[in-house]
């Protein structure tokens, strides 16, 4: 669908909110946790970036909040530097891979940085019982504070959140939801595992980061193609740029949709979908975030 940029709000030094309205007709309803994929024009290619929808499900337009990522994907840079009110963007219909778990009575929400966004939509869910802690850099404190109700605890200093104690103190009827950059997710997941959380009670979504790295060449056995994956693009992006349509949904290493079998080469895993034993087996890769450790990698696609 084609959506027009109706409004751009500067929330912080590198955080902006964009309002997207339909060129004509009405938008599909997007429930709490849903995201949209924006197709963002770049030099010689199109960036496909996923952003959580933070507006209420009934609103006439979608609102997304975007952090300008300095050194990785180009899409956020374009939105911050080039996007103008009135620009029309191609947007894929919303998907919801991160709805609040229905089976849980209480939710412990932990987020960091721009991982704040999916939980902002949870605030619209009537009667949701949650405890939310958000961690951010001091420079973003004002932006985050303006977005969060008083019931949410904002941590902007070092070590103000004792994650291990918080995770260990939760009751058995509570589910844990995590969203943030890779380092935060790794840290929180390790702490949760240590406290004895079963994986079934942990829900996670990770956006942004970790798509760049050393360039490599991917050989696709069934498609018969060899593609160069540059330092600034993901494997998924490179495959799409070559005209292929590999499977994907969240584009953030969380849903598992983009998993492809590895035939040769060594994977550098950046996802939060595969278990540690699956990672060690080196027979599958999540193309949206993971890369090759070797200069070449061969996939069954």
């Amino acid at each position: 669908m084609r959506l027009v940029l109706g409004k751009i709000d500067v929330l912080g030094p590198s955080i902006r909110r964009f309002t997207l309205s339909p060129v004509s007709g009405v938008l599909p309803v997007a429930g709490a946790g849903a995201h949209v994929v924006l197709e963002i024009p770049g030099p010689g290619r199109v960036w496909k970036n996923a952003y959580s929808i933070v507006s209420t499900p009934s609103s006439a337009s979608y609102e997304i909040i975007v952090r300008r990522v300095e050194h990785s994907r180009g899409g956020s840079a374009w939105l911050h530097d080039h996007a103008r009110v009135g620009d029309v963007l191609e947007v894929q219909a919303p998907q919801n891979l991160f709805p609040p778990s229905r089976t849980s009575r209480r939710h412990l929400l932990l987020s960091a940085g721009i991982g704040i966004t999916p939980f902002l939509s949870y605030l619209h869910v009537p009667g949701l019982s949650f405890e939310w802690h958000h961690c951010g850099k001091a420079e973003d404190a004002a932006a985050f504070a303006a977005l969060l109700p008083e019931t949410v605890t904002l941590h902007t200093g070092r070590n103000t959140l004792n994650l291990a104690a918080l995770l260990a103190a939760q009751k058995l009827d509570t589910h844990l939801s995590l969203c943030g950059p890779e380092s935060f997710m790794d840290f929180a997941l390790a702490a949760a595992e240590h406290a004895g959380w079963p994986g079934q009670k942990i829900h996670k979504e990770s956006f942004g980061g970790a798509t760049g790295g050393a360039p490599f060449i991917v050989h696709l056995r069934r498609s018969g193609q060899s593609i160069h994956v540059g330092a600034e693009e993901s494997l998924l992006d490179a495959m799409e740029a070559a005209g292929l349509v590999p499977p994907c949904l969240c584009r953030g290493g969380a849903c598992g949709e983009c998993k492809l079998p590895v035939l040769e080469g060594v994977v550098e895993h950046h996802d939060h979908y595969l278990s540690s034993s699956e990672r060690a087996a080196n027979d599958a890769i999540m193309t949206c975030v993971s890369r090759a450790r070797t200069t070449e990698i061969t996939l069954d696609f």
Partner: protein
Amino acid sequence: MTIKSRPIYAPFKLDVTGRVHLVVTNLAEAPVEVEEAVGDVLVWTVKTVAPGVPAPAARNLRPFRSVAELLPQLAVRLAQATVGLRIYAVGSEAFIWDAYNVAMGAGLDGAEVFTHHAGPFVRRVYCTHCRTMIEDVAVTIIPCPVCGAHLFVRDHFSRRLAAFMGVIVDAEVPGEIPAAEALIS
């Protein structure tokens, strides 16, 4: 023939991802595998030394007078406990699924509860005719003590009721009742 609704039980094994382990059983003693488990394992049994007098508690061991006393205490414990607890229900199928349902009611996930069948092969039978629960049935055909229907004990197990279905055996030819056999599983 495999019956889908009939649960399959794995042998007892501690889930090492848990921090605290609570074994609940309707038997007087936990099976030997439980005794041999190393780690922070608490055991709740049903054992009396005289009617209404539970056996003495010991380190990590808490005997109850009855299942009727144990299960509500389990609910209390689960409401207070924090994450990291694993529940192992060991004993008759009726008991282990009652305990499982208590755990689900307290908000646990299936991954935090383990069921292990142990002890004699006795079934709780649900009379589909009058809805009476008949405990400790060891044979394939029984009369319902309430409505008098002769029930065939099917392998169909309801986890919600923690009971096997008892269906009328002489529905087609009233009075034609085959001989009962001992249950072997």
